[in-house]
């Protein structure tokens, strides 16, 4: 099957595959894992939608509690890291491990910065009084609630859903950064990835793009709507 196509098809280069689906185990396993991840985030997003629909009153308007500008930058950063990841993948397919290492390192840096900015955002929010249980008493935001700028009835749900959704996404990004760093140190630097063997890069790439994809959805529904 592959003999003729392999030389031409840039997107399906020959790779030692398994009998069943003609895909190697790790890649298939990652797709199965991503299927479960889709359901996990569907549960979180579904809960958010149910609670927001059934909430006893208006939801806080976007931009009052959350800092949109810095998160927009963060979104852009994640998109950049996604493209650098796919560049790393393309580089190793072309048999250029040096270029691959460069792009992979860039991806790790992008991801780490994303996490850093998110931590900064959390600290900032908590200082202003936005916490998972809602609004902390006596804080800056509590005054806004008292003035009626923020709806008192739904802030508890807002805090619960915001921190759970973004927190779990941040956790996924962190896991991605850790595993990419691990692969960078143990596989990429010693030169174990070659034109014929790059499964780790492709698999971790799939995960990384998925995390980016989830953020695209989360950014829209949490920060913009």
């Amino acid at each position, binding site marked *: 099957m592959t003999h003729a196509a392999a030389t031409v098809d840039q997107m399906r280069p020959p790779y030692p595959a398994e009998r069943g689906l003609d895909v190697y185990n790790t890649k298939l396993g990652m797709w199965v894992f991503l299927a479960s991840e889709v359901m996990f985030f569907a549960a979180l997003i579904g809960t958010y*939608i149910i609670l927001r629909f059934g909430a006893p009153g208006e939801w806080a308007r976007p931009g009052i509690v959350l800092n949109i500008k810095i998160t927009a930058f963060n979104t852009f950063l994640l998109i950049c890291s996604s493209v650098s990841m796919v560049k790393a993948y393309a580089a190793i397919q072309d048999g250029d491990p040096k270029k691959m290492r460069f792009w992979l390192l860039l991806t790790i840096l992008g991801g780490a910065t994303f996490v850093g900015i998110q931590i900064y955002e959390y600290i900032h929010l908590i200082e202003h009084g936005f916490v998972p249980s809602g609004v902390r008493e006596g804080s800056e935001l509590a005054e806004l609630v008292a003035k009626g700028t923020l709806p008192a009835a739904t802030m508890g749900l807002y805090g619960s859903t915001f921190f759970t959704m973004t927190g779990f996404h941040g956790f996924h990004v962190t896991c991605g950064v850790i595993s990419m760093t691990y692969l960078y140190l143990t596989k990429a630097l010693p030169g174990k990835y070659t034109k014929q063997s790059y499964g780790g890069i492709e698999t971790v790439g799939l995960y990384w793009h*998925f995390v980016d994809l989830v953020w695209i959805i989360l950014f829209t529904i949490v920060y913009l709507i």
Partner: protein
Amino acid sequence: METAHKRPNYILIWVYLAVLTAAELGLAFELPISRNWKLILLLFLAVWKAALVGLFFMHLKFERWNLRIMAVIPLPLAVIFILAGMSEHIW
């Protein structure tokens, strides 16, 4: 057996994504249209962006049909799940 694929221009996809993100921001905060329209347009843009990532960065566009099915199976389930939850509150 199947058609040969050429590698897509990843930088172009990246530009698309960046522009769409900017469009989202402008739509959400600058455009004077009703909330419902905003909601629909924003969701549309988000799905568009997600599709770009899925199809090109994750190569779904170029995979075999059986792997593509694997990736697509949970999506309708997730949507049904969310809709079922919403229907509880609309009656």
